[in-house]
């Protein structure tokens, strides 16, 4: 579980994250949504320690990440996996070497053991026959799978995904969403996902936080979001006429059933 208390981040005189508190529970897909520039990425970067917050606390299972000494932070970071927007795979390494990298760096496993573990996770993300390929030789969806495999190879307790569907077609996006969701449930991980994708929201949004201009504007689940009366949230989610119509239809159907 990750508990965020009164998080604040300022760049110059611009407040990017303003007094945000939330609880991200284990075994759930916690989605952070919001328009571009709403502070989602900065929020996530604060959570993983790439940015130092100006105020507030981030508690990983009760341990304050903000006030943690460097050595403890290093240890905690080995329990964190992250999938980046552009996958962030190492260009000069093959798929197998990319996934093996955290094992090489942090474990004393033999090469055979490492190879076995790499094949296990690649199999888990449904990636076969790609071990010897370089990132430049595989598709965007495959890169995301390799990114997920690398993120989970050390059995982390926390998984962060920054816009996992960006640049992917709707079908591949669904596959990636499903994969992240399955991995979250299988390993009881605390998963935090930054996304713009409405399909993800509806498919895997166990817990959703809507950010607006650096503040937490709304919080709930994918079951609640449809019926939310929050205007800013509705403007964001139902931006298109098609989606507005779909919502009205769904609400009418719900009314008829009642």
């Amino acid at each position: 579980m990750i508990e965020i208390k009164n998080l604040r981040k300022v760049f110059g005189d611009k407040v990017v994250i303003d007094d945000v508190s939330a609880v991200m529970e284990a075994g759930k897909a916690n989605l952070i949504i919001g328009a571009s520039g709403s502070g989602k990425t900065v929020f996530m970067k604060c959570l993983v320690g790439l940015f130092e917050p100006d105020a507030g606390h981030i508690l990983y299972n009760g341990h304050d990440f903000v006030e943690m000494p460097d050595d403890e932070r290093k240890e905690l970071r080995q329990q964190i996996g992250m999938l980046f927007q552009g996958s962030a795979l190492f260009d000069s390494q093959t798929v197998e070497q990319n996934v093996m990298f955290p094992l090489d760096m942090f474990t004393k496993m033999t090469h055979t053991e490492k190879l076995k573990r790499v094949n296990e996770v690649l199999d888990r993300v449904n990636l076969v026959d790609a071990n010897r390929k370089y990132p430049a030789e595989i598709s965007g969806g495959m890169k995301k799978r390799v990114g997920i495999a690398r993120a989970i190879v050390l059995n982390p307790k926390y998984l962060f995904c920054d816009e996992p569907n960006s640049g992917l077609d709707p079908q591949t996006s669904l596959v990636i969403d499903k994969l992240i969701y399955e991995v979250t449930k299988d390993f009881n991980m605390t998963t935090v996902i930054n996304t713009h994708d409405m399909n993800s929201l509806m498919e895997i949004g166990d817990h959703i936080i809507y950010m607006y201009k650096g503040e937490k504007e709304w919080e709930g689940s994918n079951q609640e979001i449809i019926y939310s009366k929050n205007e800013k949230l509705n403007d964001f989610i139902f931006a298109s006429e098609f989606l507005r119509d779909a919502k009205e239809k769904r609400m009418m159907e719900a009314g008829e059933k009642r």
Partner: protein
Amino acid sequence: MTFFNHFGRYLLMIKGMFTKPENWRMYWKELMHQCNDIGIGSLGIVVIVALFIGAVSTLQTAYQLVSNLIPKSTIAQIVRDTVILEFAPTITCVVLAGVVGSKIASELGNMRVSEQIDALEIMGINTKAYLIMPKIIASFLMIPVLVVIAGVLGIWGGRMAGVLSGILSPEEFDGGLLSGFIQFNVAFALIKAYTFAFIISSIPAYFGYYVSGGALEIGKASTTAVVTSCIMILFADYILAALLL
């Protein structure tokens, strides 16, 4: 950003490299990889530059020594000293600032922009220690070797040019080469090589590591890194000459 901002951040980057490695074996592997890239990767251009600089300096020295009162072996002495004192360390390192410096800056810049550095940080790896330290150590190991090779080949190139063009005989060149040799000149060349090695690796690493933006910014950082390294090499060259000679 002002010069002092850059300098302060540069010093903090250097300070940040000194931590206990997460895994010695992985750091060693990275060091060997960098030694190969910096040393073997630059050998070809160093050989070509050294041979031609030695050859040209023999021809130009002979062209300027028109008096019959000066023995021809003096040409070899002048070539030897200019190659050892200036051409081998300084010109080689200016060339290496372009070859190695731009590679370091663009490699780190690309890793920064594509979030590979962030990915390493999140794993709990000290990226300054893992990515920059091996480059600096590899430069310390390989650049003095390249400078020594450049010195030897520069003098040999000078000898070849002198003999082939009929300016002086091999015996005259060898005689001049051995007369009035000052051992400290070699030590001075190596001091320069170590100083320039630090400049060539750390300055481009700084510009690459802190790049932000996209492909255009990586290109700019690479250019700035090479220009700054060249200026710093020439500045350090002057300071070392003023202090040690």
